[in-house]
């Protein structure tokens, strides 16, 4: 590796860390707003930041993303404004969906984040159609759909993978296996550890990667994206990770095995990356503190923007129903 390549790689890792810190701070802000009674329930992605950042940063601007109820990481990694996401979650008119989505199904057309569904499996049902649109255009863009291990137990998972394989659609399936399906542990509902074992049977490459290692995720995602872009065929990437907070806020996680939670907390993707970057000198403590201060400031300013934003007017209740 040349010195230049080393510098670029270090700065990419530092950039990933800053995005992950932003996601974490955003989610904690959402949870705090919920605890304060200012917003309704939200589903946070705390613990899954490496998966979101590693995959989304492997995409190009013209690629299309479908996501789900646990979307803040994907949106922020894609460059969404935390202020407008928080405004959306707060039901404010300045939100990306005019406050009509709330936290559960935020789409941002201008960023290529199309069709978020909060129905578990809904995002999977829509993804082949987005791939079909792309397959009929003169483009090398691909569709990427994020879902969890819970969605993999839905019948539509099998329908979606099958049609994407049979029709050769440019869809990257990203299963964020966070071990939890609402309030039920994955081990109660499936006899496989890795959803990729199922996916491989449909006739597409299926790979599992350590979802808490952002650089490993990014490397695997780059391979996956390149495959889909080049071959115009689907690919399955499973990021094996853990949902560190509850299903929704508030959630005391009384049902979570303490040892398991502690074990995954010790593999926190942010702490791990910080330690590595500090350890090999890619980042100094001062730089890290500056980074954290920037993130804090960005989220405080986002919260202030959301707080100051107006609610939608009542006529918005019945607009955008029909085209």
């Amino acid at each position, binding site marked *: 590796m040349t010195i230049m390549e080393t510098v670029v790689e270090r700065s990419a890792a530092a950039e990933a860390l800053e995005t992950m810190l932003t996601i974490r701070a955003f989610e904690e802000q959402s949870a705090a707003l919920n605890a304060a009674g200012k917003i309704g329930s939200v589903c946070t992605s705390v613990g899954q930041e490496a998966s979101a950042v590693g995959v989304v940063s492997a995409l190009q601007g013209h690629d299309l993303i479908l996501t789900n109820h646990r979307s803040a990481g994907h949106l922020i990694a894609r460059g969404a404004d935390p202020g407008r996401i928080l405004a959306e979650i707060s039901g404010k008119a300045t939100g990306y969906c005019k406050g009509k989505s709330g936290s559960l199904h935020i*789409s941002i057309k201008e960023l290529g984040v199309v*069709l978020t569904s909060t129905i578990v499996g*809904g995002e999977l*049902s829509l993804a082949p*159609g987005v791939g*079909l649109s792309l397959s009929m255009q003169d483009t090398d863009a691909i569709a990427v759909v994020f879902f969890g291990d819970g969605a993999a137990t839905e019948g539509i998972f099998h*329908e979606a993978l099958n049609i994407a394989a049979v029709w050769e659609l440019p869809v990257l399936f990203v299963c964020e296996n966070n071990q939890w399906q609402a309030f039920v542990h994955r081990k109660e509902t499936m006899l496989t550890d890795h959803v990729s074992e199922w996916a491989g049977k449909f006739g597409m490459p299926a790979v599992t990667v350590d979802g808490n290692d952002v650089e490993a995720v990014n490397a695997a995602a780059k391979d996956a994206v390149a495959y889909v872009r080049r071959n115009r065929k689907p690919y399955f990437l499973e990021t094996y990770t853990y949902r560190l907070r509850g299903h929704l806020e508030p959630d005391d996680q009384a049902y979570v095995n303490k040892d398991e939670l502690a074990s995954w907390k010790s593999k926190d993707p942010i702490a791990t990356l910080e330690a590595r970057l500090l350890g090999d000198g890619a980042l100094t403590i001062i730089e890290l503190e500056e980074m954290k201060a920037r993130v804090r400031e960005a989220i405080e300013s986002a919260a202030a923007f959301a707080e100051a934003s107006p609610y939608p007017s009542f006529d918005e209740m019945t607009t955008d129903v*029909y*085209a």
Partner: protein
Amino acid sequence: MKTMTVDQALNEALAEEMRRDPRVIAFGEGVATKGIQLVEEFGPKRVRNTPLAEGIIAGTAAGAAATGLRPVIDLLFAPFLTFAMEEIVNSAGKLRFISGGQFSFPMVAIARTGAGWGVGAQHNHNLESWFVSSPGLKVVMPSTAADFKGLLKSAIRDDNPVVFFMDIGLIYQPGEVPDGDHVVPIGKAAVRREGSDVTLISYAKTVHTCVAAAEALAEQGVSAEVLDLRSLKPLDEDAILASVKKTGRAIVVHEAAGPCGVGAEISAILVEKAFGALKAPVVRLTGPDAPAAASFPLEAAYVPQSDAIVAAALRGMAVH
């Protein structure tokens, strides 16, 4: 004018729209198998067979519609829509609103229902009112070959998801279809027969039953108007109110069961907005609250009959 069956009218409409707009694609169970001419003209990318999996057919249509295509999907029989409710109702119907108007879902979902083939309750279930109750969707259910053609063309051009019901009993019925680009607007009812004493309001094959009843009533000196709704959502409230304000009596006739059905909605509209004009109670003649039987005599008896319409109209006439 050309005479053709409903089935031929639909195929002609689809071919014309595919010729007119390269974004129109068609897929579903057997769509390519049965539409060989469509495949020959438009190619296998635009005309596709699918797995027997209604959920992913409808979901794929919704995803494609939101990103630039205009899919027409064939889900075969209406009860199969239960497998596609999530995608049609939660995605196609709601995601425009949820996204604050960022996306639209120009797609058409075709499904067959009604008595005629003895296929039983899992292939024959007039569940159209479920979709009328779901925001963001349009619902049509034509009665003539001309309307099947014209409404399918409108549905394909519409920027909203349209659920297009085909009454099984009408599929091979011939009818006259105007030449050229025959387009029938969604949301407009048609007066099939003018009259002054009672309005018979219906859609799909029972429109023809109403016309037969109106002819029988004419022999008894009762002048019945027959209104064919054609679209169930949006409902042509103006046409309903105009007719019933003129006649003062209304009988709503449909094959679908009564509870919370289209007839219930129309009765409520008439009571709310035309109460002063009513000379007799509004009557609903509907299929029973029971699954449709496969046995031909039972299946046929499920559908409201002309005699019952005539009797109800005569009872209404006796009120004043």
